[in-house]
């Protein structure tokens, strides 16, 4: 057997069903071996989309996503997708072809040091030096990618190693058991919880990744602590749950940010005090003690000192910490009353489509299990604010890296994982152009992804910042020369239609959801639509700007 066949066989042993990739010179032995494998290869039209589709597949399924590219530009095109997975702790194995070992270090055709280039954005990486070590490398790569705090792992495979004939040696690399939190930390955390009269749970993406949804919900049901969520923590509690106060941070709800700013105890579960969530860090939750539950010790006290670190398996820790807290009833009522008082206002002036209202209607009608993959910008925040999620794996959003162009490939990955699910890509006229070529992939595999393309003829989030924080000095945000998106989609075999009046929204959503195959709705919105509320850069989460306040300032 050849090295490339070892690789493919080891991937089969790992239960890999799908590989997203793009062939080329140095990876050709692996593509040859794939012809004799039951693993399905999905040909994308740009390697970045291979990595992002593998990421979307992994987020939707919890399994390790696999992507593959050739050496040189193929490998460098994967980098953004690998970094995206790294920032959001998504389990991924990226396989790159490399020039033959004798040519490495000679500036050979399509040679780049992808091992070195990706070092800052991988959990670990391997350079295969012999064919016989390939099965071990593959199994270690999968173990590392999914264990503890997940992340991407790179395997760089020189062409001569892929072509070397040797005897296959099976290696089984069983998953490590994650350590349980110490009994002492649990005791101290419970003592702090019992002392507190105003606790808040700050729920992050770690809950879904640790597969700890049941334990988290049981913990909340017992303690009755109000919950705020990060972008990636949305769905840890269903959006409609009485204790779910919504998203915190820059575009969070007034209720969520107010609860955090006034609480006396913050129980952080699988989150990392990201600046978009905390606002100005030294003014974040100023009266709160902190209990920090995380599997990654390096995240605890990195940005905010934890009074009680609870390091280890979230499932265990949440079970151990569930206790009744009768003292917090008045606080709980205060929070839930605030939630009922500060509801979203879906009335907006004008006849144009109002994106928040469109998304609310879409969410109401897409079903409880719809998966939404979004791109990055204003529409991403509107999805986070107005879509209802029952679990985090329904909401595929590039949080840490903020990768425009994530949405369409991620939707492709999710739709392939769940062929009969309703998968929606919400995008913007800026983001869609970053991976527009993947419309061809949708057509090729006839994936019934529903694309909602909000078009404000601008890079809306940047435009909004320039309006609010740069004295309306608009710099390079005008996209009024956009192509006709309907014709672009139709040219790639995707039916498309345009929506430019709010009276058409209801029938547009009907049409979108009724279409059996892929479809694109090109939705025109007001060019100056903004995401509200917003916490300005460098500001505390106590200083949220609301639309009516800004309007008043302008009138003055």
């Amino acid at each position, binding site marked *: 057997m050849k090295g490339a066949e070892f690789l493919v066989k080891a991937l089969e042993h790992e239960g890999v069903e799908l590989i997203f990739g793009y062939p080329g010179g140095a990876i050709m032995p692996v593509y040859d071996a794939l012809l004799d494998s039951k693993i399905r290869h999905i040909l994308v039209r740009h390697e970045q989309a291979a990595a992002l589709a593998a990421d979307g597949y992994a987020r939707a399924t919890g399994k390790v996503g696999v992507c593959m590219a050739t050496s040189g530009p193929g490998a460098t095109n994967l980098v953004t997708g690998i970094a995206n997975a790294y920032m959001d702790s998504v389990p991924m194995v990226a396989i790159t072809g490399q020039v033959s070992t004798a040519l490495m270090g000679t500036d050979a055709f399509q040679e780049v040091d992808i*091992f*070195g280039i990706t*070092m*800052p954005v991988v*959990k*670990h*990486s*391997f*350079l295969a*030096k012999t064919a016989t070590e390939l099965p071990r490398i593959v199994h270690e790569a999968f173990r*590392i990618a999914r264990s503890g705090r997940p992340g991407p792992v790179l395997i760089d495979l020189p062409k001569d190693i892929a072509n070397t004939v040797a005897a296959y040696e099976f290696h089984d690399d069983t998953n490590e058991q994650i350590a349980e939190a110490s009994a002492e930390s649990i005791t101290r955390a419970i003592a702090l919880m019992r002392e507190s009269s105003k606790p808040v749970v700050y729920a992050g993406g770690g809950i879904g990744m640790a597969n700890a949804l049941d334990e988290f919900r049981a913990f909340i049901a017992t303690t009755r602590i109000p919950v705020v969520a990060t972008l990636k923590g949305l769905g840890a509690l269903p959006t409609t749950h009485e204790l779910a106060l919504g998203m915190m941070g820059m575009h969070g709800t007034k209720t969520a940010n107010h609860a955090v700013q006034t609480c006396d105890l913050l129980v952080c579960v699988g989150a990392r005090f990201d600046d978009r969530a905390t606002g100005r860090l030294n003014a974040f939750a100023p009266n709160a003690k902190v209990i920090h539950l995380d599997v*990654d*010790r*390096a995240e605890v*006290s*990195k940005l905010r000192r934890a009074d009680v670190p609870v390091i280890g398996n979230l499932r265990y820790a949440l079970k151990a910490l569930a206790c009744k807290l009768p003292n917090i009833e008045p606080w709980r009522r205060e929070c839930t009353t605030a939630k009922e008082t500060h509801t979203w206002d879906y009335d907006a002036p004008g006849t144009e489509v109002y994106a928040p209202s469109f998304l609310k209607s879409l969410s109401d009608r897409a079903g409880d299990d719809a998966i939404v993959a979004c791109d990055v910008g204003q529409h991403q925040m509107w999805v986070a604010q107005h879509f209802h999620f029952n679990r985090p794996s329904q909401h595929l959003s590039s949080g840490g890296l903020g990768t425009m162009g994530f949405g369409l490939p991620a939707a492709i990955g999710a739709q392939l994982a769940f062929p009969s699910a309703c998968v929606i890509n919400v995008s913007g006229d800026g983001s869609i152009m970053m991976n527009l070529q993947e419309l061809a992939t949708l057509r090729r595999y006839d994936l019934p992804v529903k694309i909602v393309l909000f078009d404000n003829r601008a890079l809306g989030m940047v435009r909004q910042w320039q309006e609010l924080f740069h004295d309306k000095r608009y710099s390079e945000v005008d996209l009024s020369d956009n192509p006709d998106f309907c014709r672009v989609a139709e040219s790639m075999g995707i039916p498309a239609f345009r929506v430019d009046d709010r009276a058409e929204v209801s029938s547009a959503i009907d049409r979108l959801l009724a279409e059996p195959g892929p479809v694109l709705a090109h939705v025109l919105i007001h060019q100056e639509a903004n995401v509200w509320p917003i916490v300005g850069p460098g500001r505390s989460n106590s200083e949220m700007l609301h639309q009516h306040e800004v309007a008043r300032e302008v009138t003055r």
Partner: protein
Amino acid sequence: MIKFTLQVRVKQSEGALVRILGVTRRRRFDLLHLTADTTEDGHFLDIQMTVQADRAENTLVRQIEKLEDVSQVEVVDPGDAVSEHRAARFTAC
């Protein structure tokens, strides 16, 4: 600014030293001194590095200890663990 010395043991693997130095730079610790030597069995690299930063020691210790091939990280007194005559010297970057 705090200054401290770390003793790190890492498996001899592709890019092991570069990986540790990369984490050190990315986390904004300045390298002042570095010695590194292979253990007698050839399986590990022992690194002693002195760094300075505005950040707490633990920020770097925790980031290095979670690297896959690192088996040990300790804050030590400079000159403790690796004898000078055995150590290969690198110029500080």
